[in-house]
């Protein structure tokens, strides 16, 4: 790999620029003007005038129709999601689209869908947030979500959208956001295939918006099928260890957990800002092995902290790598072919209760490639 290859890659990406663009220069111009007005109002007249300008802007950017639905009533949104139970499924998808992947963490459940074409897969996302994670600001200008893992998430509302499931909904740039249950909000990025010709066509953009509303209207909550199953089981772990997040793929009629993290439920913003990992606990990736898959082994250079060793554990060849990234020790264990599966486990932290070699040798049972043998309960 050389600089010239990087240059070539960037040039190829740039050359692959699709013909259509969703960039709306007029909208940028309008928003820029509005922002300037607000700034000038603030400078000129203090907070009261600024507040008036903000209120005027809110009215200006929100079209009079369609009217949003009422705030959600009825059942409350879940306080948190179980990573072992996919909470979401699609009831309707635009033609040619299918489920690509999904995931669950306590504060958010999400699905990725899309279609493949000559330029590769084009995907879009649906995310549903647990109760209390997101709040609409007073004049409906922003949807703000604040959790340890999603700090600062803000969707700037650009207009009203048709009600979804009878509840209020808004456009937030290329997202549709709506209140799916009392105290809970959802977002959906527009299902726009970027490789389609003439995406700048306003009619196609509007069609994507209509599709988004229809997708949102048909989302099923709390009853995901098929089941989420794991191709491995972990045993004899500390009692407080749980699966804290899962990323899954549709596979052979089930949802196969491809990556999952363990946690103790304690807030942990250390290793990766709380997004997936908890310090001193493992993150596992398990997928069907490929014939040509192999594990990278560090050359153990003198000037590098990275050290790899090859071992045979329980009859499987594994490569264990230790390194220090910044000030954070990290351990990785890789098995390219283990009972038909490829396995990669990472763990940050200086004091893991169980190191990865021990985890693989004494606590992990791989369940092979037959989905009938996979489990819904990966711990225990």
């Amino acid at each position, binding site marked *: 790999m050389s*600089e010239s290859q990087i240059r070539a890659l960037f040039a190829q990406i740039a050359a692959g620029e699709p013909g259509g663009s969703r960039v709306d220069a007029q909208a*940028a111009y309008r928003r820029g003007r509005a922002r300037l007005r607000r700034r000038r109002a603030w400078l000129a007249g203090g907070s009261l005038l600024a507040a008036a300008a903000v209120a005027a802007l809110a009215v200006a950017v929100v079209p009079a129709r369609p009217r949003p639905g009422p705030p959600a009533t009825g059942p409350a949104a879940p306080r948190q999601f179980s990573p072992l139970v996919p909470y979401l499924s699609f009831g309707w998808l635009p033609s040619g689209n299918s489920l690509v992947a999904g995931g669950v963490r306590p504060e958010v459940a999400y699905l990725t869908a899309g279609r493949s074409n000559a330029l590769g897969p084009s995907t879009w996302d649906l995310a549903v947030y647990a109760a209390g994670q997101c709040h609409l600001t007073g004049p409906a200008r922003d949807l703000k979500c604040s959790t340890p893992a999603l700090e600062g998430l803000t969707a700037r509302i650009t207009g009203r959208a048709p009600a979804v499931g009878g509840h209020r909904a808004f456009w937030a740039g290329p997202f549709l956001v709506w209140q799916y249950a009392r105290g809970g909000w959802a977002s959906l990025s527009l299902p726009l295939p970027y490789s389609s010709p003439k995406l700048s066509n306003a009619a196609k953009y509007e069609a994507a918006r209509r599709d988004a509303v229809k997708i949102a209207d048909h989302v099923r909550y709390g009853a995901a099928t098929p089941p989420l199953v794991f191709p491995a089981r972990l045993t004899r772990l500390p009692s407080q260890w749980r699966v804290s997040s899962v990323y899954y793929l549709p596979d052979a009629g089930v949802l196969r957990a491809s990556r999952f993290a363990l946690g103790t439920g304690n807030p942990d913003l250390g290793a990766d800002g709380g997004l997936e990992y908890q310090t001193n606990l493992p993150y596992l990736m398990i997928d069907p092995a490929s014939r040509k898959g192999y594990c990278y082994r560090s*050359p153990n250079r003198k000037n590098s902290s990275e050290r790899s060793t090859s071992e045979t554990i329980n009859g499987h060849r594994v490569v264990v790598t230790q390194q220090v990234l910044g000030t954070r020790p990290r351990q990785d264990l890789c098995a390219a072919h283990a009972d038909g599966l490829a396995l990669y486990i990472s763990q940050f932290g200086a004091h893991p209760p169980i190191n990865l070699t021990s985890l693989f040798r004494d606590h992990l049972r791989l369940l092979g490639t037959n989905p009938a043998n996979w489990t819904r309960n990966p711990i225990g």
Partner: protein
Amino acid sequence: MWWPVVSGGRDAEYSEFVAARLSSLRRLAGVLCGDWQRADDLVQATLVTVYVRWGRVRAAAHPDAYARAVLVREWLRERRSGWGRRVRLGGPVAEAAAAGADPDVVLDLRAAVAALPPRQRATLVLRFYCDLTVEQAAQVLGCSPGTVKSQTARALETVRRTLGPPPAAGAGGQRAAAGEQPIYPGGPGRE
């Protein structure tokens, strides 16, 4: 594409600037994001900021460079925020390789670059796509030239390590036969 209706002065200049630079900004955004949908969103946000700061853009010695810096910083800001990270939860989806290239090699390289931390990726893009000098890249990123050098070195090393040793690896490296794929994390939460 809808263009603003403008009567002259500031707005006319802005409109002219955007019309002339939109395509190059979009390509830069595409290289940074690796995804044209998000690239369009990034350009959209950049154009708003450029309008608000039009006085400074126009007064800059190189308005193009100023707009480019706005775009790169906006991307880094998005990557730091939860919104940018959330939409990447599913992990990067590789796109098709360019015609004429070895598809496996291109896809591996693309995935490796996509998995880089945002500032390292931005550094590579500024150095090897925009062809900026170390000093110019440092100005865009708001850091020292030394940091640009170290970020570049780290990024290249990370990509090399992710791709694994070449077929004729040196001492200590594991030999990889043609077509073999390293088992290596490239999933969510890696940035």
